[in-house]
């Protein structure tokens, strides 16, 4: 487990030259904004968080206190990183300047509107390994977890 040197929630700020720290930009949407504390704008929140270099998405989620049952569609730098039922982002290592967007579990992105969009390598690998090749709208219902 990587330890957090410290966290900072607020405006983006320069990190200096420290090699052991990174700063990521996190957008939380809908009910998830309550995990942003005072940065919540009701429907959304934008926060900048300082992490130790080497932190993963799981570390970030732990820091935010964001429970699995509320986490929905997730992006890392504009690439689809996770969907409800596809926890493909947990082990992704974050880097300085990354933008992470997390929607509530009740959000949606139907297949035809993400067909051909940017996917993280982990999501691509997951889809390629499925019998249905990922051609579904949602993945969280047991009957659709065809593998």
């Amino acid at each position, binding site marked *: 487990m990587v330890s957090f040197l410290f966290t900072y929630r607020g405006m983006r700020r320069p990190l200096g030259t420290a090699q052991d720290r990174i700063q990521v930009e996190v957008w939380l949407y809908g009910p998830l904004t309550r995990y942003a504390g005072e940065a919540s704008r009701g429907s959304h929140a934008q926060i900048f968080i300082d992490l130790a270099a080497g932190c993963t998405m799981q570390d970030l989620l732990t820091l935010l206190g964001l429970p699995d049952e509320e986490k929905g569609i997730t992006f890392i*730098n504009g690439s689809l990183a996770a969907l409800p039922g596809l926890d493909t982002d947990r082990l992704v290592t974050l880097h300085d300047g990354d933008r992470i967007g997390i929607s509530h579990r009740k959000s949606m992105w139907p297949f*035809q*509107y993400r067909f*051909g969009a940017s996917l993280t390598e982990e999501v691509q690998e997951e889809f390629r390994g499925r019998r249905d090749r990922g051609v579904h709208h949602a993945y969280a219902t047991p009957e659709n977890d065809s593998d």
Partner: protein
Amino acid sequence: MAKLLRLNMTDRTVALQDLPEAYRLLGGRGLTSAVVHDEVDPQCHALGPSNKLVIAPGMVTGTSAPTSSRLSVGGKSPLTGGIKEANAGTGFAPALASLGIRAIVVEGYPQSAGWWMAHITWNAASGKPDVTWLPADEYAGRDLYEVFPQLFDRFGKVSVAGVGVAGELRYSNSGVVFEDQEGRPARYAGRGGLGAVMGSKGLKFIVIDRKGAPGVPLANKEVFELGRKKLTDALMSHAITKPKGALNSYGTAVLINILNEAGGLPTRNFSSGRYENAAQIAGEAVFEGNKERLGKELYNHACSPGCIIRCSNTWHKPDGTEHVSCQEYESIWAFGANCGIGSLDDTGELIRLCNAYGVDTIEMGCTMAVAMEGGLLQFGDAKRAIELMHEVGKGTPLGRMLGNGTATAARLLGVRRVPVVKGQAMPAYEPRAVKGIGITYAIATMGADHTSGYTIAPEILGVSGKVDQFDRDKAALARNFQYATGFIDSTGHCLFIAFAILDIASGFEGVVEECNGVLGTSWTMADVGRIGKDVLDRELAFNRAAGIGKAQDRMPEFMRLEKLPPHNVTWDVPDSTLDAVFE
């Protein structure tokens, strides 16, 4: 026996004919496209005497099938020059179906000036619908929010199809308007300028009073009920379509934040894929804004009778009074991100004005963005955009320029970034960032149309293992999406049932069984591709004869030349892939 109702605007004669055998198993888009294919000269002028306006409820519309009050409106499009089917959810659809009318065909050409409306009632004595012609000049040139209540005061509980000022002025961007559940002029068969076709016929309104009408007969009630229950169960349990699910909570605008994060939200006339103020105009913001202004949570409502998805929202003013219904994804985006306007109050007013004057929000928002790029106003200038919308409603020369669509405005303003395919403006998904929707835009028979390629799982269509989202050649998958959509559009179901039936196969079985229960057929799921293909084949044949071929199945040049932030990607799908879709 089911009927076709012909309204001849040359002499205002009416013909009620038995539904031809060739049309017996058709409904919705399948029927409108068949009539247009069979009866309209593809080379005709869209606003001339040879074009026809066809209005058809779906196969199961008017029954208790869930979320099935959809209506197709067809004709030759003055915007694209090709075949058009525009679709709306409205009480007009089941009202028409309940009269035993499978389609209204508006034809002919008026011989004198003046506006008319057709008042359709059920005659119990004759067992047939009656049509009465009434002058409608008193309603012309006016805000539809004023006119609709007057129609309901005059005729009681009726359903209305009509045109606003835009249709009267024959704008290429004019829709056919229908009432929503609260009687607002808010449900539009908006795309492709079919309001201008109706306006060219001198037909202002069609008013239906369904009182005493017999309803839609079932050929096999047991089979229908089996199917209805399966589909209902699927819709009520799927995460996207269930009560208090994604659509019921946040509406379609839940996609604003998603597409923005994906870098696929067209911004400032398709110059970027990410808008810095997107979160302020997203579905989550609509929900929170209403909660703050009303002091309670407000979930969405049904746009039409019998819808159990309930994704239509109402936006409220700061004092808690109603502003507009509805602020859905494409409409918010068109005036929001695409125009650099980050206020739901502003997008709400612009959408309300589209409803009031009778134009399509997607086309109008794209036109406004082109006008911004052309220097007519600045990006983000909501005040001026609202003023320009009033110009559209007044029919000033400037308003007429803007009312005739994105391509027309771009040509007049010397703008080269023109986000259209076949003359129709693109909806709210950036094709450079989401390549699959780009293929759909390019090859759709309707011009750039996000609703023509809805997904049904390949295994359901019987092509499992033959298509793959990771294949470089995506033609086969795109083709199957087109066929699946052609089928759903014909059933009378809202396309959003696709969200559930893709993932829950029994729901899809239910749709087919509903159709069998109404039509007396013995279709299986294997028939769906064939039925959808028939729809597309007719539309493609019409377009080819109208001069719209593969050379028009292309994305605009700027998308191949300009890299789209934040992914910095261009449109790079080979033309050979597009050409292969319908080969």
